[in-house]
């Protein structure tokens, strides 16, 4: 699989899903989409499709939808999508031409909020609210990206063979959780807690999770010092650790 293909999968399935949390945690985004009732489809030739379903003040991001899209944003290639995420290209609207106003004015306000939270800096990280939202998004991005890397990245694919039957949950103590499990020769990612996780990586606080997930803390030090707790099948955590580190190769 090409670099652009894998990067596009991460954009589609790991980055865009953050809009679900954005509109839940960020007041500005919440207000923005309050009255939206629209289904937007991202269609990337040679990569995949993602639907953003806005209704009742919520957003659901999914790879299939019973509802027909109101807007279809087409990308001619994985590279085309990646360029859009870099701000160097625009999608081709195949459907929803009449909603150009929405696409050019309202929707970009939402993506700007997403970008704001996904690009932390020292100043922003002084704000605990920012830390919380950024951490939730980074945590979710990590596991959704992990799924794609285990399926398509050369090292990820190699590691995937070694973690058959695996189920790994990452969470912040008394905070957000997300887990990935191998099912039907693939992987599924779910937001929230699993009742009986087989492997757990738990961060002591949002700040620790943020530092850890943003590469400011190595796993061995964090675990040994008690900042991060692991239990269960820690060999799976050990196995996916280098794969998680590869996310930065695509999304940095």
């Amino acid at each position, binding site marked *: 699989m090409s670099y652009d293909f894998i990067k596009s999968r991460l954009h589609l399935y790991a980055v865009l899903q953050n809009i679900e949390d954005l509109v839940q945690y960020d007041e500005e985004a919440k207000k923005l989409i309050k009255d939206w009732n629209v289904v937007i489809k991202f269609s990337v030739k040679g990569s995949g499709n993602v639907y953003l379903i806005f209704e009742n003040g919520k957003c659901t991001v999914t790879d299939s939808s019973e509802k027909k899209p109101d807007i279809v944003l087409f990308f001619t290639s994985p590279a085309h999508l990646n360029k859009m995420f870099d701000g160097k290209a625009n999608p081709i609207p195949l459907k929803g031409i009449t909603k150009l106003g929405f696409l050019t004015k309202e929707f970009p306000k939402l993506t700007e909020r997403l970008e704001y939270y996904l690009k932390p800096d020292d100043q922003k990280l002084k704000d605990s609210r920012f830390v919380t939202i950024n951490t939730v998004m980074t945590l979710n991005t990590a596991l959704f990206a992990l799924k794609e890397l285990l399926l398509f990245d*050369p090292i990820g694919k190699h590691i995937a063979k070694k973690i058959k039957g695996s189920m790994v949950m990452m969470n912040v103590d008394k905070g957000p959780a997300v887990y990935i499990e191998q099912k039907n020769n693939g992987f599924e990612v779910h937001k929230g807690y699993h009742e009986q996780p087989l492997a757990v990586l738990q961060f002591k606080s949002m700040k620790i999770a943020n530092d850890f997930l943003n590469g400011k803390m190595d796993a061995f030090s964090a675990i040994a010092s008690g900042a991060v707790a692991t239990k269960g099948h820690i060999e799976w955590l050990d196995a996916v650790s280098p794969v998680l580190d590869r996310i930065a190769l695509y999304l940095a």
Partner: protein
Amino acid sequence: MKLEAKGAPQSSAAKIKSKTYTYSNSHKLFQRALKVIPCGIPGHFSPAPFVPPTMYPFYADRAKGSRFWDVDGNEFIDYMCAYGPMVLGYNNPKVESAASQQRQKGDCMTAPGKVMVELAEMLTTTIAGADWAFFAKNGGDTTNLAIMIARAATGRKKIVMIKGGYHGVAPWMQGYGHYGVIEEDIANIIGIEWNNVQQFEEAIAANPDGIAGFIATPYHHPTFADSEFPAEGYWQRIRELCTKHGIVLIIDDVRCGFRLDMRGSGAYFGFKPDLACYCKAIANGYPISALVGIDALRTVAAKVFYTGSYWYQAVPMAAALATLKELKRINGPVLMNKIGKKLFDGMVKICGQYGYDLKVTGAYSMPYVRITNDPSNMLHQEWCAECTARGAYFTSHHNWFVSAAHTEKDIQKTWNIVDDVCKLLKKKYGEKY
């Protein structure tokens, strides 16, 4: 040491007697270490695999016999034995005396000491099929040398090894995806499943005249998984295939060596390797390893350039000589397995009284031990941590080690701790497990 069974250990209805340790000095030292050493304690001594690490000591202060004391003054019966090297007990007087005498004469000198020849003679007369010995420092030095010799001898590139097998930390020994390992490092490594002769046959068929060596441990002892003995006839069939196809058969006896059989683990399982790697138990903690081989590989072994600044140290060689003499005298492998059998049979019985299934796999001298009731391993991890924090040092991710220095008193105390911890967990979880 008396090893007669005193009758089955019985669970006690009394209150939990043992107190848990605290580790403030360990943790303070670790914080200092983090500033000057990557991840504080790197490698296999890292506390990261302990669950939770905070219930384990990070730094040792001293050791004697089967026990060590940490920097907080806590005393542990050591079932890791420094991850294998301690075989006769820490500070064994015979080994220390031999090392001390050699130290007075010289250690790291401009030429090897006489003791190097004596040790090689000892190994070649002790290990079945060994015609020569080559000395290095760590097990990984010898496994690496072994594949270099195999490649030099055959003119081939490929090495077959067992998936999940551990032979050290050189890039070819680690898996693709591990930090610092590139695809090219493992381009000539073929991984097959343990006990699967068919996969070896398929690898040979897929690489005609391409396989230089087959390397495996005498039995499969991966981390995070039960140990597995060879199936009946496995090694004999591997031997046949290696001989038929001109493949060098390498046995990594680094962990099992002298804990199964003084003649080497090849003799124990009834086959003759071409090369065999030794380390851990060879010198009771002194830094030395050895590769032994058959006469047919002597010349090529001489041609492979392989050395290190401290590989000719005479003190570890003297310690190794004394260790091997003592192990022979007491028949160390038999003794360690006898001690282990008594210890683990008792532990299985105690755990069983609380409804916990303690599974012991591999040799009693170095078994992988786990409570199977909880598929997530969390119960087992908690059990290990609670036992450790009461003085019986157990790990949940790695096989344990028994030494010839573990005593009846150690076994009894360990049983008491196990009983206490089982009681504690039963009280905490009831019938959940």
